[in-house]
């Protein structure tokens, strides 16, 4: 018995060729912007998956909340998570409102208070530690299983948020794609600390 096959006719081949060309154009576009969303010092600049590698951790990015932690999450929009550059000290300036950032809906508060279930899920593969120190807080962020960077200090009243655009890359205790992860610290008014 001769197996039935679906032949590729001229129209089909033309369509495939057009797709191939479109794919190349998209690839050029992707290559030119391949570093977008991966600001220096972002969690995403470390090798991943998070639990599979060892080495020095990258400093976390920091930002702030619009007033309260977000419990909701939109799926399938990984590109939105490109938090602001890392905030580092209480003396640093204050940035824009976290609530005005495109990644606000992907930000989950981890401090103060007990992290929500969504925040805990967003922390998969990451290690964020916050402790009171003097008149402020010390924040340490790293990829789980990697050596943590030196803590950063913020004035009392700061809120700490974890940013995770998509949970689809998390499995067990591993985060396979750190490009959509970040850490944001805000002041009491919800402005991102720089």
């Amino acid at each position: 018995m001769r197996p039935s096959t679906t032949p590729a006719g001229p129209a089909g081949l033309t369509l495939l060729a057009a797709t191939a060309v479109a794919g190349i154009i998209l690839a050029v576009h992707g290559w030119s912007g391949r570093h977008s969303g991966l600001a220096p010092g972002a969690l995403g600049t470390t090798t991943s998956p998070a639990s599979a590698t060892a080495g020095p951790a990258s400093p976390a990015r920091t930002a702030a909340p619009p007033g309260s932690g977000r419990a909701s999450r939109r799926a399938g929009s990984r590109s939105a998570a490109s938090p602001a550059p890392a905030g580092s000290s209480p003396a640093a300036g204050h940035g824009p409102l976290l609530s005005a950032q495109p990644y606000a809906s992907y930000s989950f508060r981890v401090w103060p208070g007990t992290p929500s279930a969504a925040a805990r899920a967003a922390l998969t593969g990451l290690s964020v530690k916050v402790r009171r120190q003097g008149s402020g807080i010390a924040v340490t962020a790293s990829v789980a299983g990697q050596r943590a960077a030196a803590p950063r200090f913020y004035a009392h009243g700061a809120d700490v948020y974890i940013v995770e655009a998509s949970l689809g890359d998390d499995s067990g205790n591993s985060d396979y794609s750190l490009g959509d992860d970040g850490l944001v610290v805000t002041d009491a008014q919800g402005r991102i600390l720089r």
Partner: protein
Amino acid sequence: MSIGRKHPQARRAAAAAPAAATPASRAGELAAAWAPTAGRVLLGLVLAWFGYHELVQPGLWTGYVPLVASSSALAAVAVLAHGWLLLVLAVALIFGIATRVAAAAAAVLLAEIVISLIAVGGLSDLTMRDVGVFGLAVCLTGQHPQRLVLRR
């Protein structure tokens, strides 16, 4: 697009069926006729989604490339090539162009994804989900009556 001819086995089954087909048998015939097409198009949509996103934002996917630092240019090139292949295969599957060959290539690609995921992170829910998609691709490499295929 043209409607593909009925598969010989399906024709024989239809001929052997009693004149008064029950709803269940009619549903079975409908599923036999359209399920492979539905599976093919849905698999194509999955590949298209991942292919497109790998092409436009390779930086978010380089973490999946084993043995290579995710920040390296090599990882980005690998993701772009992967995305390009996924996109071409997706169009072939969705439009029914050389469907069995495309399904076989997709199966090889998905096997590679499953193996690399296991190598990097071991067995996980992500891995098992991709095993299921791999199974669908393997299924489509078989001989099925295919509808909505581009023969010209």
